[in-house]
């Protein structure tokens, strides 16, 4: 790895540490969900009912760290922020490992 590439890795780690900005800003400016990413409860408030098939399939997957949060919506800010940073760190590690794995597999195949 070149020294520039090492520097980039450090920048990625810094981004993970700064990532809670991504939960602070929406909170400060009273912004809600992204358009089209509402929970079924919010959908019921917005349109008055939950579409039938949406109700059946919305929760088919239970993510281990749902919403990048180890607590829940009512957890303290510290818990949410630390979960967010940890999620970012997990993201970096998994992305690097998986892409490295894919590269190695592709290299082998082309030999």
């Amino acid at each position: 790895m070149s020294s520039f590439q090492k520097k980039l890795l450090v920048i990625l780690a810094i981004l993970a540490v700064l990532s809670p900005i991504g939960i602070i800003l929406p909170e400060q400016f009273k912004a809600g969900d992204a358009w089209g990413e509402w929970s079924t409860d919010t959908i019921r408030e917005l349109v008055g009912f939950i579409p039938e098939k949406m109700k059946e399939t919305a929760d088919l997957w239970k993510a281990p760290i749902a919403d990048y949060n180890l607590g829940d919506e009512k957890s303290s800010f510290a818990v949410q922020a630390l979960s967010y940073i940890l999620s970012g760190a997990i993201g970096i590690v998994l992305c690097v490992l998986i892409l490295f794995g894919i590269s190695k597999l592709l290299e082998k195949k082309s030999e």
Partner: protein
Amino acid sequence: MHIPDGYLSPQTYVPLYAAFAGFMAVALKKVRRTLSARNIPYLGMAAAFSFLIMMFNVPIPGGTTGHAVGASIVALVLGPWTAVVAVSVALIIQAFLFGDGGITAIGANCFNMAVVMPFVSIAVFKIVRWKASGGWRVYLAAFLSGYIGLLAAAIVTAVEFGIQPLIASADGKPLYAPYGMEIALPAMAIEHLVLFGVIEGLVTLLVLMYFMKNDRDSVYALREVK
């Protein structure tokens, strides 16, 4: 822009899974051919960058939130096919581990953000930059590549939402995403035109300038046409 489970009907998400699989298969072949010891570390970092930048939610005061995707700068630095692979990996991790984007919608989300976006971004960059190898034309091209790239992804996403009431309703009631095109399209287009696209443009521009200063030779979009 991460479509959750329950918003898309199977007649939408199945074809999008197929389209994404096709692009991914070609992308893996192309990446195999261009892989070098020098750019292998960049692949993982590109996916990680995309993963992280999507965590920076930006608010429209009193309204919705959105974020940059990073697919434009990945396409400019590593090429659109490599971007397909890198951004998809980030999106698939987000879906399975963090519930950001549905499992049934992985094909759709990857198609929108990891296929449409990189190819639109690289096309815009090439057209705007024309033959310039530096200066304002390259900078403008970088900004617009991010701005229009994200906007294109948002519009494709909005169309997928917007067709649901048309193709999947029972007794006049929507079964999946409830808002038709007349609501979905302006909502998604305007928020990305006004704010999120600008952020993607700036991210694209800043990271490209950083690469031009430190490792210009490895920048795909500046190397290809001489």
